[in-house]
């Protein structure tokens, strides 16, 4: 590093089946912030993982009797149901069986990249069928229903970790979990510089669009990552709850800034599902967003900065199952 290099510290490590990045404005606060982040990630994984048999989510999905959720699991359920209501069901936590029917029924690293077997979409039961009392934290799922909190739990972890880590470190912090990021505390003078890409694993080179954020959440959803092939079709991890199938291809990648990472990720995922109706919906909510069509053309709304260079085509280098 030179004398002009960034003062903040950067820590990167694998977590939740993806990559966690922790930026701390004052490097002296890094140990405290990192301790908080690791504890938060472990807690959210134990509460909400779809692939851990000992998680609260797995237990709830495999019993028909009511269960009492722990405080963190309850917060995650609240966040998921709020997302469902705010998106009129475009982001629905009951898509678990739909996702499994499409082939994403195990950790993504274990998903078979290609399978010629037929795909039969399964429509989810719908979030309104979830019997949930947030006051007593009592949850009961109808038979055949399974929760998948993937659209909101990771973002919730980013929000919670950023707030707590900033308090612990006594300075500004940015937490990025698989491309979903939350910033809390005083940001550096020029803000946190964030590269926008189709895939969160793209090295932050600055070759594509770069924006500066000072707080709140920023999330990107897209179809370029976590995709696989079944029955001659390319599938991915975003399900349209109305059909149980992947949505009609229109947006390749959608990035949204919001007050929290949960809101940003909810809006980004909903935009992919809503397709042509996404632009008006985002404008109505006043959410700054950048939407990239499958042909690479870009539309920005609500104050998201225009690209200085056109979006690059989807990367040919494919990671993991496709």
């Amino acid at each position, binding site marked *: 590093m030179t004398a002009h290099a960034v003062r903040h510290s950067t820590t990167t490590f694998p977590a939740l089946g993806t990559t966690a990045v922790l930026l701390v404005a004052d490097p002296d606060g890094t140990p405290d912030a990192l301790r908080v982040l690791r504890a938060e990630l472990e807690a959210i994984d134990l509460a909400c993982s779809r692939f851990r048999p000992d998680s609260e989510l797995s237990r709830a999905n495999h019993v028909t009797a009511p269960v009492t959720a722990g405080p963190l699991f309850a917060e995650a359920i609240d966040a998921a149901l709020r997302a469902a209501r705010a998106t009129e069901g475009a982001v629905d936590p009951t898509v678990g069986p739909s996702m499994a029917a499409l082939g994403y029924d195990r950790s993504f690293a274990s998903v078979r990249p290609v399978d010629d077997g037929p795909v039969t979409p399964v429509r989810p039961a719908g979030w309104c069928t979830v019997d949930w009392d947030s006051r007593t934290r009592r949850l009961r799922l109808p038979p055949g229903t399974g929760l998948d909190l993937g659209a909101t739990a990771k973002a919730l972890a980013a929000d919670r970790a950023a707030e707590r880590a900033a308090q612990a470190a006594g300075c500004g912090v940015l937490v990025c979990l698989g491309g979903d990021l939350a910033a809390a505390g005083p940001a550096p003078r020029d803000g946190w510089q964030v590269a926008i890409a189709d895939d*969160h694993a793209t090295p932050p080179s600055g070759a594509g669009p770069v924006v500066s954020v000072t707080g709140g959440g920023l999330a990107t959803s*897209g179809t370029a990552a976590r995709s696989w092939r079944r029955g001659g079709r390319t599938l991915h991890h975003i399900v349209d709850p109305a059909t149980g199938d992947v949505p009609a291809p229109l947006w390749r990648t959608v990035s949204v800034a919001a007050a929290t990472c949960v809101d940003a990720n909810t809006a980004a995922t909903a935009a992919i599902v809503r397709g042509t109706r996404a632009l008006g919906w985002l404008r109505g909510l006043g959410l700054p967003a950048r939407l990239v069509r499958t042909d690479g053309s870009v539309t920005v709304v609500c104050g998201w900065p225009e690209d200085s260079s056109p979006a690059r085509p989807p990367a040919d280098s494919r990671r993991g199952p496709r």
Partner: protein
Amino acid sequence: MPDSDPLHDHPAVRRRDRGLRRVGVVTAAVLTTAAAGTAVLGAEYRGQPPGVVPPPATAPASAPTPPAGSTLRPPVQAPVPVAPPSQAPSATSGAS
């Protein structure tokens, strides 16, 4: 003719008159309130576009009850462009 009607000055008659006045006042208040309420509700329903059903006062028993504030909130400040970046950005937001 006497100056005052002895029957009208009787205490029981005065109590009856006071009671009748109270009943009249209460009746008028109830009628006014009902008329005002009818006018307000009528105006509200006239304002609804055809085919729009007002939301029920309470959610269906089977629907979950997420916490209040079910609207996605915009950020305090929209992202600011960084061009050209003075150094490599520290994080990447992309699909995962």
